[in-house]
């Protein structure tokens, strides 16, 4: 590595990091928040064994898990306009990542819900709580604790997965790196640089995950 390469890397560092904060992180956070809502609702429908809705939930999970994210991105961004539905790049990406993570997290949440002993629901009902009140105050918090590590892994996976949004013109970190690489011909070093930035993001999240787990474990551990 010579002085010229070093200058390019220093110069491009902020240029890549800024879309990290303005695109990659918002895309991840918004998509994941929506995914969690989808996951909880989908998991609850299955846990409660509601006819019809349960079949719809299974169908949704089957479709999403059986097809590549990249293809889903293309269907929404390049495919839908041909049948008259235009969605901008960023909301398209949010939609696809939310639906995608939602399906995987729904499975995580469902098995976490099922791991809560049936006696917890019965005790809730016998204490004068409704099914939904027991779900909200007793079952979901316990399930969430069980699901926290796998959900954190999903979040870390999503940060990296957002790089696929560059394929549908979202100017996130990877897209910006590609442009700089095309201009400067220093592809090797620049892709290493963006990889390093993803690594930093993931490391911070892993650290936060560990802190979160410690907090959850610091009280009321189940015997």
């Amino acid at each position, binding site marked *: 590595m010579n002085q010229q390469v070093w200058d390019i890397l220093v110069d491009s560092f902020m240029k890549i990091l800024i879309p990290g904060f303005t695109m990659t992180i918002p895309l991840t956070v918004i998509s994941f928040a929506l995914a969690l809502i989808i996951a909880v609702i989908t998991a609850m429908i299955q846990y409660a064994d509601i006819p019809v809705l349960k079949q719809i939930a299974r169908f949704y999970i089957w479709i999403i898990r059986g097809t590549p994210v990249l293809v889903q991105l293309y269907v929404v961004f390049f495919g839908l306009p041909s049948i008259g539905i235009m969605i901008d790049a960023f909301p398209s990406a949010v939609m696809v990542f939310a639906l995608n993570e939602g399906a995987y997290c729904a499975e995580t949440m469902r098995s976490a819900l099922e791991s809560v*002993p049936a*006696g*917890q629901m*019965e*005790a*809730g*009902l*016998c*204490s*004068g*709580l*409704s*099914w939904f*009140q027991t779900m909200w*105050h*007793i079952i979901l*918090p*316990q399930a969430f*604790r069980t699901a926290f590590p796998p959900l954190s892994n999903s979040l870390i996976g999503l940060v990296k997965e957002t790089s696929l949004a560059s394929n549908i013109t979202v100017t996130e970190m990877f897209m910006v790196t590609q442009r700089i690489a095309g201009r400067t011909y220093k592809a090797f070093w620049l892709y290493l640089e963006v990889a390093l930035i993803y690594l930093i993001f993931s490391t911070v999240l892993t650290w936060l995950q560990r802190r979160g787990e410690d907090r959850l474990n610091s*009280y*009321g*551990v*189940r*015997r």
Partner: protein
Amino acid sequence: MAMLEIRGIRKKFDTLDVLNGVDLSVERGDVVAILGPSGSGKTTLLRCINYLETADEGEMIFDNESYDLANASAQKMMELRKKTGFVFQNYNLFFNKTALQNVTIGLTVGRKIPKEEAEETGRKMLEKVGMGDRCDYYPSQLSGGQQQRVAIARALASNPEIIYFDEPTSALDPELIGEVLAVMRQLAKEGRTMIVVTHEMSFARDVSNKVIFMENGVIVEQGSSAEFFEHPKKERTREFLRMEDNRTGE
């Protein structure tokens, strides 16, 4: 008029007949002990009359209100459960709640009672079962006997018309049984109406005023506690009592 009147409960699990027409009548202030060998349907009976299980047939009159045990709306089930308490064999305390929260959540969330008022009641109930100094402990930090006492406080909190106990001491180590029985004895003394499924013969003999002996999903014999233990009518009852005497004698 009896406070609780159960008529003709039948319940099948697949092809297994578990309850074959049980009738039962409970007066206000009664402490009814239900005895019977394992698998006779005692737990199923308690679960059916609180809608944790749906019976195939059966009717119940409780507090001048009629309930179809084979078919009821969620509304109706809630309404019934708000007037009853249930103590489980394995406590079933909410793992994510402290002892105090376990006791108050049915009041604050279930019955919309203001938090301060609910906490006052909650502390009083925990005090009553001798757990006043453990309000902020989580279930995992309590012994089995302590957990069961919190569970009793939880069942008491809403001042229910009746409390059902399903073998409240059989998951406990022998040295912890006494503290739970003492609490239940106190409740009986205060005139609480209770139905208690139990293997504790001393409790049935000394605390309850009515005893019911079940086998194969029917009531074999019932009577006042004195009558039941002193002059059992059926040979099957005598045999059961002899066996229990031997078991506890060892």
